[in-house]
């Protein structure tokens, strides 16, 4: 899966999105990266949101939080806890 955006991405995000997502023994490479991204986000806030939306096809960010990195991070981390990706 390749996608392009003008919102700056961290290098790791570009690497994840450049991975060809092919079914292989039921494994989805994109989905496997979600806990990694969320753990990184919990340690150091950054522009992970575009990648998470692309991988998950979900958007837990409240509209009033758009653009506010800390609030968007909290919304995604709560999403991750609710779905069991992180503790």
């Amino acid at each position, binding site marked *: 899966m390749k996608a392009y955006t*003008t919102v700056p991405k961290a290098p790791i995000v570009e690497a994840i999105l450049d991975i060809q997502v092919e079914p292989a023994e039921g494994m989805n490479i994109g989905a496997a990266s979600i806990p990694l991204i969320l753990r990184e986000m919990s340690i150091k806030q950054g522009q992970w949101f575009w990648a998470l*939306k*692309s991988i998950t096809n979900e958007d837990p960010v409240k509209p009033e939080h758009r653009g*506010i990195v*800390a609030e968007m991070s909290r919304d995604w981390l709560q999403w991750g806890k609710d779905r069991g990706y992180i503790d």
Partner: protein
Amino acid sequence: MPSNYRITSPESPDYNCIAWAAGTDDRWWWPDNQYTAYWPAEVPREETLAAFIQAYSLKGYVPCDTSDYENGFEKIVVYTNEHGKPTHAARQTQAGRWTSKLGNWEDIEHDRPDNLAGRHYGVVVDGREVDKVLWNRRLG
């Protein structure tokens, strides 16, 4: 990087150049189609100069002709690339210099809008002022 500049803040991922030019340092402004950044609800979410003009007009900015400092006015400039797509914005300080936020990195203060040259900001290297749009708003 401009040749005459100074760093005026620590690195911060909390805001970008478009927000900083609008006087905001607590969120990213950009009309991305993924809705990950803030964009005024009443403005089309499109990466066009017209949309940026409309967004900044909500802050009271109107077009102007010169980047020269004028007492009582605050000026901003939006840079566009060769396709007319906005790429950066800067704001004039009350000292007559210009302040820019560089992505996830620091704010810098520079002498003139065309101190930022190169393919990312849409200003040709020979210093010719092209592909920038100026606005001002009255202060006070």
